[in-house]
């Protein structure tokens, strides 16, 4: 079989994706039919609701932004064969970093202060993940488990900050004091929450793609991801690429969390980013770890959430139907059989 890598495989995985989505959406429809008293209306709102007005649409696009960042973070990690299971904590920590900087500099210049905040998010997220990488290189501690454990601790620590030192005594919400106004990112589609961070997301996707596929470091990272023994044999410093992908991944996750606080919420509230880490994994997988594919994949996930929200606001379906649909996608998205089948039927020779 001396075939080229690109066209046949791509089409096969698209077909696999299509089948997966069909099953997921089919299940959603089935559940709606069983559970709802107004199935027709629910189906309408679930599938088309997000497009009915700019508010829903803008919010959907905005919800995709953190998914792009965590998806990029996971794509970089997966391509390097490194397993970052700590996304949840890294995103959450990014939010904390931004909040700490902005609250600490209440009257600084919006642009400069915001830049500093973003850098803090990158550093904190990258540092947390990098710790796991360091443990892996130094003591061969499995980075998957260690990143998960560290992330679990980070979640609790950030919660402590929110309900403790940063707590806003003025209201009963589990949230920090609000950030000063100059730090709010410019809105794009008022009154929805869509803001400048969406553009950052697109830029990040393009930059990550260029980095991974064309740059020197990207090449070495990918080679280590494909075959570490070979890379070491070829003279690449493999230990460096056990840590670096974790740092980059963690930084991207942190950036996503930080931008959520700056752009969408302007405040750090408890649980604002829960699920972003896990969904980032799904986004990366749907995109087959291709940084450019992360954007449509993130939109897909955000679409599911938005549809469920629209249905929930207009009827009797619970929001959880989104996570059920998402879990079905998770179940089937990596099923090789599907894409193998697609590949076999194409080869009519």
């Amino acid at each position, binding site marked *: 079989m001396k075939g080229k890598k690109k066209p046949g495989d791509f089409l096969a995985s698209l077909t696999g994706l299509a089948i997966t989505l069909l099953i997921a959406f089919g299940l959603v429809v089935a559940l709606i039919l069983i559970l709802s008293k107004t199935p027709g209306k629910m189906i309408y709102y679930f599938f088309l609701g997000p497009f009915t007005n700019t508010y829903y649409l803008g919010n959907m696009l905005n919800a995709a932004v953190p998914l792009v960042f965590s998806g990029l973070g996971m794509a970089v990690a997966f391509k390097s064969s490194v397993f970052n299971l700590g996304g949840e904590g890294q995103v959450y920590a990014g939010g904390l970093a931004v909040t700490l900087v902005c609250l600490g500099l209440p009257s600084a210049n919006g642009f400069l202060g915001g830049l500093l905040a973003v850098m803090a998010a990158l550093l904190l997220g990258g540092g947390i993940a990098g710790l796991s990488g360091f443990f892996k290189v130094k*003591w061969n501690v499995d980075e998957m488990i260690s990143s998960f454990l560290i992330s679990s601790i980070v979640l609790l620590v950030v919660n402590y900050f929110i309900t403790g030192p940063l707590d806003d005594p003025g209201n009963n919400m589990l949230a920090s004091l609000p950030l000063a106004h100059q730090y709010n990112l410019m809105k794009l589609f008022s009154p929805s929450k869509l803001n400048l961070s969406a553009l950052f997301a697109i830029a990040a996707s393009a930059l990550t793609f260029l980095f991974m596929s064309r740059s020197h470091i990207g090449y070495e990272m990918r080679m280590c991801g494909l075959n570490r023994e070979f890379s070491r044999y070829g003279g690449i410093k493999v230990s460096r690429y056990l840590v670096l992908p974790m740092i980059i991944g963690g930084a991207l996750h942190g950036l996503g969390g930080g931008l959520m606080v700056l752009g969408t919420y302007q405040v750090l509230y408890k649980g604002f980013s829960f699920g972003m880490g896990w969904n980032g994994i799904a986004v990366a997988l749907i995109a087959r770890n291709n940084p450019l594919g992360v954007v449509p994949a993130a939109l897909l996930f955000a679409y599911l959430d938005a549809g469920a929200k629209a249905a929930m606001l207009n009827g009797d379906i619970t929001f959880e139907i989104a996570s059920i649909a998402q879990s079905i996608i998770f179940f089937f998205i990596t099923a090789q059989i*599907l894409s193998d089948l697609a590949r076999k039927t194409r080869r009519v020779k």
Partner: protein
Amino acid sequence: MRNSQFAIPFLHSAIEIMTPFLLAAIGGLFTELSGMLNIALEGLMLAGAFFCVTFAATTGNLFLGILLGILCTMLLSLLFGMTTIYLKANVFITGLATNLFASGFTVMLAFQLFGTKGVIQFPNIPRLPVLMVPDSLQRIPFVGDILFGHNVIVYLSWLIVAIATVVIYRTPFGMRLRGTGMNRQTIVSLGLSPGRYQLVGMLISGFTCALAGSMLTIQLAAFVPEISAGRGWIALVAIYLGNRTPAGILVASFIFGLSESFSNYAQGTIRIPSDFILAFPYLITIVAMILYSVWRQSRRGT
């Protein structure tokens, strides 16, 4: 006097607390030995917690309720197993899918059946029976107070560990299961189907996780969303910490039971923010992992 007043209830509750870890981990051991990474212990436990208590409440019969709950949980683990083994999906991802599905599905069903997405009380549910032991055993100083007086599932878990040990090391099934995990090609060349053993291992983990979950909710007589609270993940760590043997898992689960028991007691008495106390099990796990790796490296002379 104060020490033993603290120590005995502390250890007694540690035994009880460790049971869900133990059950989930021993089931997970079967999947692990067959070569499948099982990160769905959390989701399976959550599903078990919900289904067992719901069926127990609606049928009014504890045994029947738990049985039905186990069956439903095993269905979920069947989905996990089939997609991974026969559709060749990535085991890590399908594990996440199982967890996500359990989270969403339990809340959705809870809402449909009981009208609320929050805590659901089941005040009329039968209590978990406590195993009665003859007075002579109960009166043994120290040991007697710690080991006896627990509910049935605690003792059942010990029985399951014993049975698991025998099955894994002394039956053909156990040999083939371990063979599948060690060298899949060999199993195939013998004409055996590795998928079959992996699937059975997966179903076993569904069974034990359901039992683990049932203990959480039935004791509480309530279902709380996400009641599993990370225990499934800790059980996974217990498998590795226990070096993938039933005896090791017993010890590791006990350590985690101790840690959680400690954090429960500490939350009341010691002046540390509650979040930090909750983080304690994760912290000692990661320290244990690092120490273990350092120790192993020094042994190997690298």
